[in-house]
């Protein structure tokens, strides 16, 4: 019996023009949670994709329980007891939980017909066995992301997975859901399942993981017990240099009110939103996922229709029905869903940068000045250090952090007075994260007014001058920087503390 449930030895993988992995070795002890860390593009995902057979490695051996195996596709991987929970889940939303759980392998009657009775019984047993409270008859699409993820984990367990790879499983979970997930992970670990845990979030690593392996530039740069690690050492390993403060909040003068929002509501989604926004201010929106924070921004930006309330910008009532109207008021919005509403994947970096600002490139003749576009694209690539081979590279070929910087460039280019940023650093590695933070701070310093939605408490606490907290579509309070603590915010976010009228009026 081997000491390791999984060993990957001297794995190399190259893509045309890129050496993604160079002689990487990775060992997983049975019944442990093993963190894989590293900046985006460091090779974590590539290694895992080699493991589950989505990519074929060029060199290297994989041993499972000391036996050499050759995994060529995900089906192979699951036969060897390896499952991966991808960051972006892709459930069949129109079918039931049970059908999703046994997708492609439902219990059969007479080898031809699906045995529905058995299907739902097995599903119920599996879910209950893991302590998951989900009705197997529920339509998958009605579940929250957290529950979908649990179904996904249950699926892995039902396939007798002994190794489960989780790729940033908490990226769209609320803190309560994260706790539930951790409970489940501990439960699985106790049963002897080994978990490879990919995450950018430091505190999670120290909370849940036993071992940690760090990647940088396609190489393994360190592996150790988590108990021997410190945050500083981890960051140092990941970026190869010491980072300045994660949240470089620079005090800057907060001046006149630029935007007033009164009694804003949109259908049943949210109502009663009241706040003032000042130049040079970063106003945080905190709350649990689903509290309606994104929806408020969408409404202010014209992506969602408001049903009541008034918005005043620079002293004039603004009627914003579509994003084009918002742009006319010098507003900009970095959306939460980078892939869904942000990047235009098959277009070049340059096209993505200028897309919200095209009218400034139209010459008198009505034709577009490509020279000016190229010049601006180059300037912004340089100014905010977008790592891209050229301005003509398709944006889909960049890493997540760099894609996000392109989107930041897109909005900077429009010269906004008011900037909304929605989860600006989700799924972005440590280095790029710090850069995005300092960009946002710098913009505030230039007198722009910023609203930032974030589910990461340290980000909210570190960056914001004030924090507006929401709970189930209602504004439960506004906290000043000096009053904002993790505990206070959570109280408002879970609505354990009723907002007093006093705090409200004081905040405005």
């Amino acid at each position, binding site marked *: 019996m081997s000491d390791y449930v999984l060993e990957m030895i001297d794995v190399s993988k190259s893509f045309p023009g890129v050496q993604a992995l160079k002689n990487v070795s990775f060992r997983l002890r049975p019944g442990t949670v093993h963190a894989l860390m590293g900046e985006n593009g460091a090779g974590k995902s590539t290694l895992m994709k080699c493991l589950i057979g989505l990519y074929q490695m060029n060199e290297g051996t994989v041993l499972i329980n000391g036996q050499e195996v050759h995994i060529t596709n995900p089906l192979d991987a699951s036969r060897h007891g390896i499952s991966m929970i991808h960051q972006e889940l892709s459930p069949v939303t129109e079918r039931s939980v049970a059908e999703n759980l046994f997708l492609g392998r439902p219990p059969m009657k007479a080898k031809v017909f699906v045995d529905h009775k058995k299907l739902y019984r097995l599903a119920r047993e599996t879910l209950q066995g893991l302590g998951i409270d989900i009705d197997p008859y529920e339509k998958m699409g009605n579940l929250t992301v957290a529950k979908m993820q649990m179904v996904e984990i249950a699926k892995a367990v039902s396939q007798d997975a002994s190794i489960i790879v989780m790729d940033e499983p908490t990226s769209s979970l609320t803190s309560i859901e994260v706790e539930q997930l951790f409970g489940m992970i501990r439960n699985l670990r106790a049963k002897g399942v080994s978990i490879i845990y990919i995450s950018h979030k430091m505190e999670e690593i120290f909370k849940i993981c036993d071992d940690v392996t760090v990647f940088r530039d396609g190489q393994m740069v360190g592996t150790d017990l988590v108990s021997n690690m410190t945050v500083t050492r981890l960051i140092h390993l990941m970026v190869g240099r010491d980072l300045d403060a994660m949240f470089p909040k620079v005090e800057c003068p907060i001046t006149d009110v630029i935007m007033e929002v009164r009694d804003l509501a949109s259908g049943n989604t949210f109502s009663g939103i009241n706040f003032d926004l000042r130049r040079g201010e970063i106003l945080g929106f905190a709350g649990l996922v689903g509290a309606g924070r994104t929806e408020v921004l969408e409404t202010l930006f014209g*992506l969602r229709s408001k049903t009541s309330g008034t918005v005043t910008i620079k002293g004039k009532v603004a009627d914003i029905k579509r*994003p084009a109207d918002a*742009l006319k008021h010098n507003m900009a919005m970095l959306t939460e869903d980078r892939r869904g*509403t942000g990047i*235009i994947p*098959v*277009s070049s970096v340059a096209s993505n940068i200028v*897309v919200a600002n095209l009218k400034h490139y139209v010459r008198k003749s009505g*034709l577009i000045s*490509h020279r000016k576009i190229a010049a601006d694209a180059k300037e912004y690539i340089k100014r905010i250090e977008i790592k891209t081979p050229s301005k003509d590279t398709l944006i889909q070929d960049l890493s997540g952090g760099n894609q996000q910087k392109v989107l930041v460039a897109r909005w900077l280019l429009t010269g906004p007075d008011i900037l909304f940023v929605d989860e600006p650093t989700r799924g972005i590695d440590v280095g790029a994260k710090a850069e995005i933070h300092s960009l946002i701070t710098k913009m505030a310093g230039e007198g722009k007014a910023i609203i930032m939605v974030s589910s990461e408490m340290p980000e909210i606490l570190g960056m914001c001058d004030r924090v507006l907290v929401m709970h189930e579509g209602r504004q439960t309070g506004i906290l000043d920087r000096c009053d904002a603590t993790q505990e206070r915010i959570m109280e408002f976010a879970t609505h354990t503390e009723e907002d007093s009228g006093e705090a409200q009026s004081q905040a405005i």
Partner: protein
Amino acid sequence: MESNAISKRRFDAKGFVSKYAMYVILIVLIAIFGFAEPAFFTGKNFVNILTSESSRGLLALGVAFCIITRGIDLSLGSVMAVSSVFSASLVQKLTYSTLIIPGLVNFQPIPAWVAVLFGLAVGTSFGVMNGLLVAYTKIHPFIATLGSMTIARGLALLFTNAYPVPMLREDFTIIGQGSLFGFLPNIVCIFLLMAIIANILLNHTKFGKNMFAVGGNIDAARASGINVERTLVLAYTWSSFCAALAGVMVTARSASGIASLGEGYELDGIAAATVGGVSQTGGVGSIVGCIGGILVLGVINNGLLILGVSPYLQKIIKGAIIVIAVVFDMRKVARKK
């Protein structure tokens, strides 16, 4: 612009091969046909190819815009027919005009340009309708344009009662039968001019840039302040304008308005655009590629004809080449998950 930029990038061997796959195919085809049949390899024959492909080529130029916005336009063939019969009905020699609109005999002959504009207007109105349907009702472009394809065909048949509209005046037929400098047919000139206009629209105007954004990611386009609806309406309008123009051209050439004109042409147009690298996944395509696609299909049509290959076998070969070309193309623009 986009495609130019890609070709300038160095050290992208894979990109280079797939980028030029279509031109390689084109050159290979020309070489094969040229060796097999010297008659293929004459300047006159190349003009022939352009002449016979110019109407379908126009449809490709039109539908490319729709495909770039991640849509499709199935109504183009029927729009050709509509513009054909409506424009023809105004320029029949007087004795015939009275067949469709009695009483016309009492009027002055209608100038040819009015007939052309009339045909273009009626045809283009279908594109406006398509665009409005796609943009505002959010029904799938396939269904929206399938509907208007049937309606437009019905309108052409109803208007003529399925009779041809023959005996057109020469001031009208010269559009299709005349030629520039005595060797370049007018319809080829029109096609080339439209190709230049299409290229300017697509790459050098805000409208063109917006189309790429809408096709690449409609939600991101909207969030970037682009008027998505207007962009879509314009794309479908342009598409049917191209078809209407093709209808007028063919009518002038054959000196007869025909209600069954252009049946299945929309598919040839779509095939040419697709072979030319205009991706069905949206947000990708160029006019230069489109013209390449038109030439590939034109060379196949013409070459097989000259070689005397059975027309049935021709279809099989053509179908296979379309699929092969697109398989190559898919590698170029595969969307990353």
